[in-house]
């Protein structure tokens, strides 16, 4: 491509030529003045050890700008600033409000793909430093989100009850409140823990014990009876919401509360994303 066929290039070239010509002209003028110019004008009365000074009127443009600035300064001090006081926080509040309104209208009915994308974004920024960018919990440093529960977690909760989640009186804020400690022990606890951690597969001792001891709160299918107690089979919206609001301090470690930091849509989105991590299972 011939670079001169581009308008922007042609304009730039023209501009460069103009600047060059003006510079040469101005430099020539002052050279001439230095060579031939004579000082002229009226001397001031004062002189300092014989060194005098000419009276020069200030240029009109400069004078106008000077006086204009003073007038503006007085106006700004007395009227401009006090009467329309600018507030950074005010602007922030406006920005947030406008954003929220836009966010809400844009994502009033998000599709599953929208949620998945949004959830991935939130997860990578807020959650991945602990849960890992693949969600596997970085070798046991945090919950492995590609899998619902580990056997050692379930066992710990059976033994210690809600204390194993961070607060003996109930940590996660479910309607059923707290989970009592020591519902089962020994081999029975082991059997149920294997059954729950194994994804509720098969039948036998574990399955029977679960129906007898745990189903009354967690539901016969382990899905938590529509949010009465935690869903033990998958990360439903409710458990993600509750953990984000209340945090959790279990056998793996401590998850801080994210209360008020994500919008409800974002919480839902991150739950959808977390569920997508275990889809292959």
């Amino acid at each position, binding site marked *: 491509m011939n670079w001169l066929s581009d308008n922007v290039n042609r304009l730039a070239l023209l501009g460069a030529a103009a600047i060059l010509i003006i510079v040469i002209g101005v430099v020539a003028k002052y050279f001439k003045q230095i060579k031939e110019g004579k000082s002229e004008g009226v001397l001031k009365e004062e002189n300092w050890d014989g060194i005098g000074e000419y009276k020069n009127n200030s240029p009109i443009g400069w004078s106008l700008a000077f006086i204009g600035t003073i007038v503006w300064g007085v106006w700004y001090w007395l009227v401009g600033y006090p009467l329309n006081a600018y507030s950074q*926080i005010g602007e*922030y509040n406006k*920005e*947030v409000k406008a954003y929220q309104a836009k966010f809400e209208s844009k994502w009033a009915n998000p599709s599953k793909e929208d949620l998945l994308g949004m959830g991935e974004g939130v997860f990578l920024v807020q959650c991945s430093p602990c849960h890992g*960018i693949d969600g596997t919990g970085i070798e046991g440093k945090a919950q492995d989100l590609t899998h619902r529960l580990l056997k050692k977690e379930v066992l710990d909760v059976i033994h210690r009850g809600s204390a194993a989640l961070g607060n003996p009186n109930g940590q996660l804020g479910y309607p059923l409140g707290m989970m009592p400690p020591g519902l089962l022990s020994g081999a029975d606890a082991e059997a149920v823990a294997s059954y729950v951690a194994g994804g509720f597969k098969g039948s036998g001792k574990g399955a029977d014990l679960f129906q007898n001891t745990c189903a009354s709160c967690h539901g016969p299918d382990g899905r938590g009876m529509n949010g009465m107690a935690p869903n033990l089979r998958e990360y439903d919206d409710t458990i993600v919401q509750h953990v984000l609001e209340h945090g959790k301090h279990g056998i793996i*470690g401590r998850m*801080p509360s994210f209360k008020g930091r994500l919008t409800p849509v974002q919480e839902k989105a991150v739950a959808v994303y977390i569920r997508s991590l275990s889809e292959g299972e």
Partner: protein
Amino acid sequence: MFSWLEKNPFFFAVGVFVVIAFAGLIEIVPDFAQQSRPVVGAKPYSLLELAGRQVYIKESCNACHSQLIRPFKSETDRYGMYSLNGEYAYDRPFLWGSKRTGPDLHRVGNYRTSDWHANHMWEPTSVVPGSIMPAYKHIFKNVADLETAYAEALTVKKVFNVPYDKDMNGDGKIDVPLGSFKQAKQRALQYALKVAQETKRKDLVDMVKQGKVPEIVALIAYLNRLK
């Protein structure tokens, strides 16, 4: 017009003083405003946290990290509530920082935990694969300087009336006790033991049990305190 000033050095000096004093006034007076007072609930740093703060300064964490969340939506989304003047009332010097090679840390205590910090400081890439933050393995061995931290706390208590050993919220309890060096050290060791246990590293717990506080433990106590 003003040439008489040039002949009267005394009045010239007075004039200069007035102009500069006015500019000074504009900068100084707002610092006495209500919004620059400590925010409700702001507390001075405990001995261990102060020692951690000194590690933070010594290792120049502020060269890469700011501690000032500006009131922009993008920042409050990521870090939490924007920072207020009064939150820095007990920061001497404040550590606002001016460059964010890494993220802001002013509220890092809200969303990171002791064990996470220990893993991250030992080997940043073990938790954040692309991290360019240097590893700080040496501060797992170095012993924190509680004496200097105590001297600092005592100085600001005496000179600036920082409310150590005082009941600040009127509930009849002393909010941030300092006391003698022995008492303060005892308290710092207890606090350090708790933090060391949270990091799940036996070497740190052992060191604290021997009466030595590793710098990393003091630093984590300080980071956890940033909320």
